[in-house]
C-alpha cells in the first residue's frame, strides 16, 4: 500500500529566504505525485503535479518540485519566499492502480518578516 510522509510538521523561514518542504513516498508501483497548498479557512489548491517525464516540475507561485525515484522523494522548493506563502502544504500521491489520493500529514510554512 502507498504511504506519503512529510517529515516536517512546521518550517519557519524568513522572508526572501529559500525553502524546501520534504516529502517521501512509498509505493511498489508507478505513482502520481501532487503538492497542494491550503490557506487559512480555505480548501486545497493544486501547486504542481508529477505524472511522468521530466523529473523537475514547475508550479504556480514560483514553486517547483523534483521527483527522485531512487530516494522516493518529491521535495517542494522555492528560491525566495514571501509572507503570502504562509500556509499549510500537503504532499499527496496516488498509485496508478488505485483510485484514491493518499495525503501526507502536512507542513506548516511560516514566513517571518
Amino acid at each position: 500500500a502507498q504511504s506519503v510522509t512529510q517529515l516536517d510538521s512546521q518550517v519557519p523561514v524568513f522572508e526572501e529566504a529559500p525553502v524546501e518542504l520534504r516529502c517521501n513516498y512509498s509505493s511498489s508501483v508507478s505513482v502520481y505525485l501532487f503538492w497542494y497548498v491550503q490557506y487559512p479557512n480555505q480548501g486545497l489548491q493544486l501547486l504542481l503535479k508529477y505524472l511522468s517525464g521530466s523529473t523537475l516540475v514547475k508550479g504556480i507561485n514560483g514553486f517547483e518540485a523534483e521527483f527522485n525515484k531512487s530516494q522516493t522523494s518529491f521535495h517542494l522548493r522555492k528560491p525566495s519566499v514571501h509572507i503570502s506563502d504562509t500556509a499549510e502544504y500537503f504532499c499527496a500521491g496516488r498509485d496508478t492502480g488505485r483510485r484514491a489520493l493518499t495525503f501526507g500529514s502536512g507542513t506548516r510554512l511560516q514566513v517571518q518578516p
Partner: protein
Amino acid sequence: DTAVSQTPKYLVTQMGNDKSIKCEQNLGHDTMYWYKQDSKKFLKIMFSYNNKELIINETVPNRFSPKSPDKAHLNLHINSLELGDSAVYFCASSQGQGTQPQHFGDGTRLSIL
C-alpha cells in the same frame, strides 16, 4: 463562478442530531469526493462517486451516508452525530480518477457540542 461549493460553511450542532452537507461542482467533472480533515490537519478520503456510482467507500461509520443525485452534486448526510465527528469536511471533484488533479471546496467546519 465558484468551481466547487459546499454549504454550509459552518455547522454547530448537538450530539445525537442528524445533519447534511451539500456539495455542488460546476466544472463538468464526473468524479466527486468527500474528505475529512481532523484537528491535526490530517486529510483522509471518505467516499468517492464516479458518474453517480459509489467507487470508494473507506472505513467510515455507517452513520455517514453519501448521496449523489447527479454528476454535479454529492451530499453527505450524518446521523446521530458524535463528538468525534467534529472536523472540517471537504468536497472535491476531478475529471476521471487518474492523472487529473482534484479541485476542492472551501470546507464545512462541523462542531459538535
